[in-house]
């Protein structure tokens, strides 16, 4: 083994070690510092300045996630269907849709936040509200869902479609009864990734959904998600212990979401082998 080979090997090993220990340290540190601060009072129904409960934030996060998916999933999945099942290859429109989806996925969340503030909050007059936040997030996660749908539909073998057509089924029926059910796990993994994005998002929500720490009364009231709650606590600097506790909850949610998505991915790979 030459000297250079040895050096390369050392560098590669060192870098991999560094990458994975950083991840390990971040997770370990947050859990170790945070778990002792998880108390029942953190989950009280009401947020007060004496007890900065994260319960309202959890409720808001759930509503925000549900609402964003409700808007984004049909549009994203339908776009995927259009691109794969209907559009002709090399079509100018298809190229444009691809380009804009790519652009959307590259736009930073603060620009989404500004756009949401200018368009939904101000121009459409929705004010700081759950709805403004969810609409902004829906656009943000759209590319994730479109791409997942496209990949899942591409993975459906063509002979399934041909068999369905041969039996006399129409195009629409084939898509909804044969193609979509087969592609569901793939689409689902994209949706889970999107949930992760929504749960962790901060910059796009500060000036669209606002930071009111109460359970929202309706879609037009302002409220904060867990990530925003975390940001408010750590920037006020008064509630460090509670910030650690909130960080643990947020981290566990994200780890759970990731575990779920890799579980589905594993199932998918097995399914492909059998099929």
């Amino acid at each position, binding site marked *: 083994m030459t000297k250079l*080979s040895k050096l390369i090997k050392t560098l590669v090993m060192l870098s*991999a070690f560094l990458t*994975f220990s950083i991840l390990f340290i971040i997770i370990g540190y947050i859990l170790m510092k945070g778990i002792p601060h998880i108390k029942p009072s953190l989950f009280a129904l009401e947020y007060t300045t004496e007890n900065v409960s994260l319960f309202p934030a959890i409720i808001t996060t759930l509503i925000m996630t549900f609402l964003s998916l409700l808007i984004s999933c049909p549009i994203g999945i339908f776009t995927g269907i259009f691109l794969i099942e209907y559009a002709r290859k090399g079509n100018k429109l298809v190229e444009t849709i691809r380009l804009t989806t790519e652009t959307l996925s590259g736009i930073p969340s603060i*620009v989404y936040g500004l756009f949401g503030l200018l368009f939904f909050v101000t121009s459409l007059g929705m004010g700081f509200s759950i709805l403004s936040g969810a609409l902004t997030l829906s656009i943000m996660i759209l590319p994730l869902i479109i791409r997942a749908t496209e990949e899942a539909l591409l993975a459906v073998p063509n002979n399934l479609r041909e068999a369905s057509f041969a039996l006399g089924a129409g195009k629409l029926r084939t898509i909804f009864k044969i193609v979509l059910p087969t592609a569901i796990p793939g689409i689902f993994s994209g949706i889970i990734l999107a949930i992760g994005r929504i749960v962790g998002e901060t910059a796009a929500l500060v*000036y669209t959904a606002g930071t009111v720490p109460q359970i929202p009364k309706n879609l037009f009231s302002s409220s904060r998600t867990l*990530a925003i709650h975390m940001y408010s606590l750590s920037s006020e600097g008064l509630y460090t212990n509670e910030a650690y506790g909130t960080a643990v909850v947020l981290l566990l949610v994200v780890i759970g979401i990731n*575990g779920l998505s890799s579980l589905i991915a594993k199932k998918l790979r097995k399914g492909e082998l059998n099929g």
Partner: protein
Amino acid sequence: MKRKFLDKFMEIIFFISACVSIISVILICYFMFANGIPGIKKIGVFNFLFGLDWSPSNIPPSFGIFPMIVGSIYVTFGAIIIGVPIGVLTAIYLAKFCSPRLYKYLKPAVNLMAGIPSIIYGFFGLVVLVPLIRNIFGGTGSSILTASILLGIMILPTIIGLSESAIRAVPNSYYEGAVALGATHEYSIVFAMLPAAKSGILSSIVLGIGRAIGETMAVIMVAGNQARMPNGILKGVRTLTANIVIEMGYAADLHREALIATGVVLFVFILIINGLFSILKRKVF
């Protein structure tokens, strides 16, 4: 007849859905530019882009974002210096060194790293990195260096993911050819396969630059946020993204327009980077 109608109807629904992305991009561009450009005009393009002084509450106020442009470039550059070598080498490890058994655990770990919210990274930076830098190098600890390290960590999953698939896309014959000529495993990878994966790795770097320049919450928590020209890597900086989030809450009139204009400058940076990325990607696949 009814079925044919439904078929056509749904096709139109699919088509309209597909147009939502296009409409969104048009709306985003329109609202950003329409609200930002008037501010830039009032302040003056040169004064806005190259003004060294950002003091919105002075009389008369001054809106120069040059310190923030430089700040964003500094921390992004720092993140690239830290993140790219570690990321590319880790990608080499995942693609060519690690055993399949270990890979089963490490790949999800990279995905998890990408999934951790930036607010958690920022909090970690605030409670661990800032005191660490303060103890080692002195100063306040909130600095270009701290922000660069944190952003370097945050772009790792982006760099690793794309570089790994670029390395895996290189035909194995490159490796076999090099080994047949007597090169070692390491030599063959670095001198035969890596050059072939060059444009894929380059596009991972461009995407990493985009992520680093657009990152907001984590940077706010560790960068110090002083709106003046940074002089030295241990001094605090304010990035374009931080400028928007910090002051948007209470800004009014021209101040508010100047902040939206800051967003426009950031947006233009990102559009240029996205353009570069799609050009590079087209070269790869």
